[in-house]
């Protein structure tokens, strides 16, 4: 395993009785990289995180985290990773401070670091508030604060912005990009393609337990940009989408000469449309 590979999955498969939940998953994660694991609910995203973090045993293949087989993961590895699961898992009757301070004791993190993280997630003024009384967005920020308290090398995030309002989601995105700048590797599962495009260096599109595409969001979008199209808004508020062809280009040039074009956009494929092209399914249908 290369020294700068923090996480390596080789031919991972997971079978639950008759159902194949994961099939031949391969990937690597490097320092400072955000890797998106994208797919609809039930595609196998959470199962993958559970296998990597030693909560579940794979049926076949090898998962190595920080050079250790995930089947043999021990306290020394857990001290170097942070996990945010799809359920918040906060102690709702304890205060915000207690929630962080307990884990600070577990990781032998000084009190000043707790204060620093509270400031980072903008929860300092709520530190004496009962965690159960926080808003959903604040709870998610608390969970994230707890996961990064000990400055882990890899952060696992399972649907971190699911169900959050756009403003809070943007705040979380900013925090994740800051962590990436600090060199933290982030393994992110999401079914939000916009989020993945914005944050991830590489994405794996997961469908029915199988990676159907892998690459940077830009690469994937370009790869599937077969039919170049343009969206044109004319003066009479008419919106037209035209495919690239000599005839359509002449038509556009004509409108432009007559100064009839309000605006013109090229229609690049999004990860959403890439997913549709690859699987024949939209994510929204799930």
């Amino acid at each position: 395993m290369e020294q700068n590979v923090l996480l390596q999955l080789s031919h991972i498969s997971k079978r639950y009785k008759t159902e194949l939940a994961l099939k031949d998953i391969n990937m690597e994660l490097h320092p400072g990289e955000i890797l998106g694991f994208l797919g609809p609910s039930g595609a196998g995203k959470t199962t993958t995180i559970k296998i990597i973090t030693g909560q579940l045993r794979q049926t076949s293949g090898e998962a190595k985290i920080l050079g250790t087989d995930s089947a043999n993961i021990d306290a020394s590895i857990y001290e170097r990773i942070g996990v945010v699961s799809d359920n918040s898992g906060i102690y709702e009757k304890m205060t915000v401070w207690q929630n962080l301070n307990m884990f600070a004791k577990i990781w032998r993190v000084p009190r000043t670091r707790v204060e620093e993280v509270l400031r980072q997630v903008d929860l300092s003024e709520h530190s004496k508030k009962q965690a159960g009384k926080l808003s959903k967005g604040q709870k998610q920020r608390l969970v994230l604060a707890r996961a990064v308290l000990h400055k882990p090398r890899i952060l696992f995030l399972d649907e971190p912005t699911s169900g959050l309002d756009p403003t809070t989601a943007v705040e979380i995105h900013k925090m994740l990009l800051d962590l990436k700048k600090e060199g933290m590797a982030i393994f992110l599962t999401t079914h939000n393609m916009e989020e993945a495009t914005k944050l991830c260096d590489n994405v794996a599109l997961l469908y029915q337990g199988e990676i159907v595409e892998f690459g940077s969001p830009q690469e994937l979008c370009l790869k599937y940009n077969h039919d170049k199209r343009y969206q044109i808004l004319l003066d009479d508020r008419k919106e037209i989408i035209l495919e690239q062809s000599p005839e359509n280009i002449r038509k556009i040039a004509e409108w432009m000469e007559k100064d009839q074009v309000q605006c013109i956009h090229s229609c690049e494929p999004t990860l959403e449309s890439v997913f549709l092209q690859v699987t024949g399914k939209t994510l929204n249908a799930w």
Partner: protein
Amino acid sequence: MGNMNKLAAVAQIKWLCMSQNTAVVIGPFMVIGMVWGFKILYSNFGPNGELIPIMMAMLLNLGVTMNICINGFLMVGTAIAEEKEKHTLRVLMTSSVTGMQYFIGSILYPFVLTVVINFAILWVSGIEMGQVSVPVFFLVSVIASLISCVIGMIVGICASTQMNANLIGYPLMMVFMMVPILGNLSEGLRRISGFLFTGVVTQMTDCFANGMEYKIEALDIAVLFGELIISMLVFLVMYRKNGYEKD
């Protein structure tokens, strides 16, 4: 040093969780209140407002076994189930806390509380302390409390919700509590009771209540240590199979 930090943190988390769960906290107070209430109620039957030995024996048997069962089976089991329900167990187990640290941290306070309350029950019952062999009472209390806490951990492994923990814990509690108490009424139950750790406890409290010297016999020691070993083995087998939480 690091391990002790983690252990202390887990114990503190468990203590905060238990002390904030009304259903769990009420148990020990209920036992002491019940002993005190019964003492007041039945004092009229004895001379000078004192309990007659048979009543004192019943009171101590009921109080001590109920305390051991409630704190062990229910307090420990329900606390683990609550952590599963609220998904905090998974967070703890992926935070570098080991299974052993979680085990000790989970039973530490309930265990100490059970032993302390057993002594509180002696005091509240008003038994003449000259009739009690404190070292023996302490030793038997410690082992019995430990067994009940380990059984509580098994209940916690089996249960996925607090309701579930109660459903598993109550039948166990009925067996371990009622068989020794009803042993005075039935020869069959008395024999069975001799093979239960709570039965050893009630034999001891019976002797103290009747002003007799209690000599711990080989069978009692075998029952206490045997059931401690068995409960630990069952716990280990179940833990090795699925950990604290089955996926």
